[in-house]
């Protein structure tokens, strides 16, 4: 709930300032006195962690930009210059590169927190949607940044991702050429990507401000999913949550810094230490780990949609993949209205809870599929059989060969009067791309079927009347609620 201002200017200067520009009042009311539910758990510390991550990326990024050169002929070398010759350049670059992974780790936890505790529901729909916008901007920023070192993965990821646009009929190819500034990814692509990579974090910063503003209108959700009823349910943000957030941030930093100092390249791809070469395609083109689930959705659709029993294709597989990719994010915007349950926290939703964990498995599974080659065989039933079938003296004979070539050679050798037919009996193969399709369907089913239906048929557990009661029940068994 928006609350009355409790700011008391203490000095003459503060009174003078407050009458002209009440920034101190704003800061006080937003980050110090701000009444916060007293039952927030550690999953609520990731908002602060994310703000920290954004600031770290901006500070290290601006420092990198002082030494980086966005010219395709020397971009790779300028990153090596940062690593070798700039004072602490290696540290700044590793903090920035690992930082982007940590940023996504935090944002994924933050998003799943919201899913579990129903933080997207009334009255926080806009707050949630602003979050989704930040997430999209983050993906764009990270993708653009990944192109800057101009290694092999930079170049080929840029090529593959911008190629996505060519799937759109008619205007697709012109859009792609406009984006990369030519017919293929090259120097114009790099210079504009650098410009945009510099710009977008500040756009993110702006949307974060809106996100926090919206938060301060509705107030925090909380693990019980029950709205604040009165002052007995809340405590001031400072010092209670400042100290808790600070503690959690340091734990997060322990993980972050362990990567920076002991495994700075573990989350990246070795190919990005090979300078970009338009003539050599890497064996596997993969995006950074945090984009893998979406990459899997993009690649898992390999069939056209057409009019049955005709050759007419309405939507080609490639476009369908792009539509699925876009839909997988757009569906997040619709989530507040797709979930039909009025109960926020999954603590009180016994039927929904297992689906939530299943959804996590689906997302991790998609990430795995995205990392692997789509043709990879997971399950094979039987062996491929290449048969030559023919009739000898009225008796049908079938001969089996390990390869089609062997079989064809055999048929060639047969006497001309023998009519032999080639029959292929291929083994059943369950491949990565099939798993990807199943998981993609499961991803959408979670939003479009499970959330709407379970909300209607489920009987929620009984909920405490207030946060205060939830807290007291959790803490000590007996006493009756105060009210």
């Amino acid at each position, binding site marked *: 709930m928006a609350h009355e201002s409790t700011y008391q200017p203490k000095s003459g200067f503060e009174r003078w300032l407050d009458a002209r520009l009440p920034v101190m009042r704003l800061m006080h009311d937003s980050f110090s006195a701000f009444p916060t539910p007293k039952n927030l758990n550690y999953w609520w510390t990731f908002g602060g962690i994310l703000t920290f991550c954004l600031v770290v990326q901006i500070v290290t990024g601006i420092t990198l930009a002082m030494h980086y050169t966005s010219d395709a002929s020397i971009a790779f070398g300028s990153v*090596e210059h940062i690593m070798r010759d700039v004072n602490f350049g290696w540290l700044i670059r590793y903090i920035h590169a690992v930082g982007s992974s940590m940023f996504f780790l935090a944002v994924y936890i933050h998003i799943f927190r919201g899913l579990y505790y129903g933080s997207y529901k009334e009255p926080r729909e806009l707050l949630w949607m602003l979050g989704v916008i930040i997430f999209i901007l983050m993906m764009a920023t990270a993708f653009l940044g990944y192109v800057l070192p101009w290694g092999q993965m930079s170049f080929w990821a840029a090529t593959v991702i911008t190629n996505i646009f060519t799937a759109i009929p008619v205007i697709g190819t012109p859009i792609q050429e406009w984006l990369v500034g030519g017919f293929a990814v090259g120097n114009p692509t790099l210079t504009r990507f650098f410009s945009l990579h510099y710009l977008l974090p500040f756009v993110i910063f702006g949307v974060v401000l809106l996100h926090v503003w919206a938060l301060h209108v509705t107030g925090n959700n909380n693990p019980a999913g029950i709205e604040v009823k009165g002052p007995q349910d809340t405590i001031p943000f400072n010092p209670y949550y400042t100290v808790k957030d600070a503690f959690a941030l340091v734990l997060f930093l*322990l993980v972050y810094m362990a990567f920076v100092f002991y495994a700075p390249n573990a989350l990246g791809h070795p190919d990005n230490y*090979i300078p970009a070469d338009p003539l050599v395609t890497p064996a596997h083109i993969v995006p950074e780990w945090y984009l893998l689930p979406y990459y899997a959705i993009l690649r898992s659709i390999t069939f056209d949609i057409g009019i049955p029993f005709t050759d007419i294709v309405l939507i080609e597989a490639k476009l369908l993949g792009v539509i699925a990719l876009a839909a997988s994010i757009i569906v997040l915007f619709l989530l507040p209205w797709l979930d039909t349950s009025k109960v926020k926290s999954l603590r009180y939703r016994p039927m929904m809870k297992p689906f939530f964990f299943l959804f996590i498995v689906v997302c991790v599974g998609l990430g795995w599929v995205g990392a692997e080659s789509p043709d990879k065989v997971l*399950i094979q*039933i039987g062996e491929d059989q290449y048969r030559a079938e023919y009739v000898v003296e009225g008796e049908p004979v079938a001969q089996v060969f390990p390869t089609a070539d062997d079989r064809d050679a055999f048929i060639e050798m047969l006497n001309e009067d023998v009519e032999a037919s080639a029959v292929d009996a291929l083994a059943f193969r369950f491949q990565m791309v099939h798993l990807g399709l199943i998981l993609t369907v499961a991803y959408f089913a979670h939003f479009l079927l499970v959330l709407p239906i379970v909300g209607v048929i489920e009987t929620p557990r009984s909920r405490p009347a207030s946060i205060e009661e939830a807290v007291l029940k959790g*803490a000590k068994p007996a006493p009756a609620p105060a009210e």
Partner: protein
Amino acid sequence: MSLTIRTGTIIGAFVMALNAGAAMAAGEAERPHAPQEGWSFSGIFGHYEETTLQRGFLVYESVCAGCHALEYVAFRNLADPGGPGFTLDQVRAIAANYRVPAGPDEFGDTLDENGLPFVRPAIPANYFPSPYDNEQQARARNWGALPPDLSLITKARVNGANYLYSLLTGYEDAPEYVEMGENMNYNPFFPGQQIAMVQPLYEGSVEYPDGTEATVEQMAYDVTNFLMWTAEPKLEKRKRMGFQVMAFLFVLAALLYWSYRQVWRDVDH
């Protein structure tokens, strides 16, 4: 009909998550492995050994430099802390063995009387010059293959140090069933098993001034250490600083946890 569920592939995927790039299906390459003594640069207190790096430099200079460039390394780096620890005088002497482009002279000429571009001995500020004038020349001299720059090679391959060590020690005669391409050499660790680089290291390829026996394993070990350093010259500093940072963060975490308990002590939550 038989049911072959490829459990190998499924388990393999998990192993791969930890140790990417492990290839285990029959016919694929053997797994790269570390030398018996392990690497001094791995682990939390990882560091380089100066003598090893110096020997590794010798191997690079006398064997690999004939075909491979070291574009991002300057001679001066050989005297940097956390590196091979050559003295500046030694570095000057090493640099003077290399020729780098020079000119124009005071008349603005760029070619000498024979029509060749001016060259001069390198100084510590120069970078290692490439053994080739251009890519075409590099390919022409190597049966069409391009010897990659080695400055970053240990970071540019999965499991880089182990891979390089295994590659250098892994040459063997091709099995009978393998049809070798022209001018190709069999190496089970190289993707595709056929590599254009001839076996570079043989027993005694270099003579170590410190009397160390120049076995193939020893030279491969030394040059891999050296190339790890060229790829991560700040590794020692990084790991040392990492320890201080982690220790600081642990103490800070403990203090903050204690403060948190203090601040929240009277609040039910």
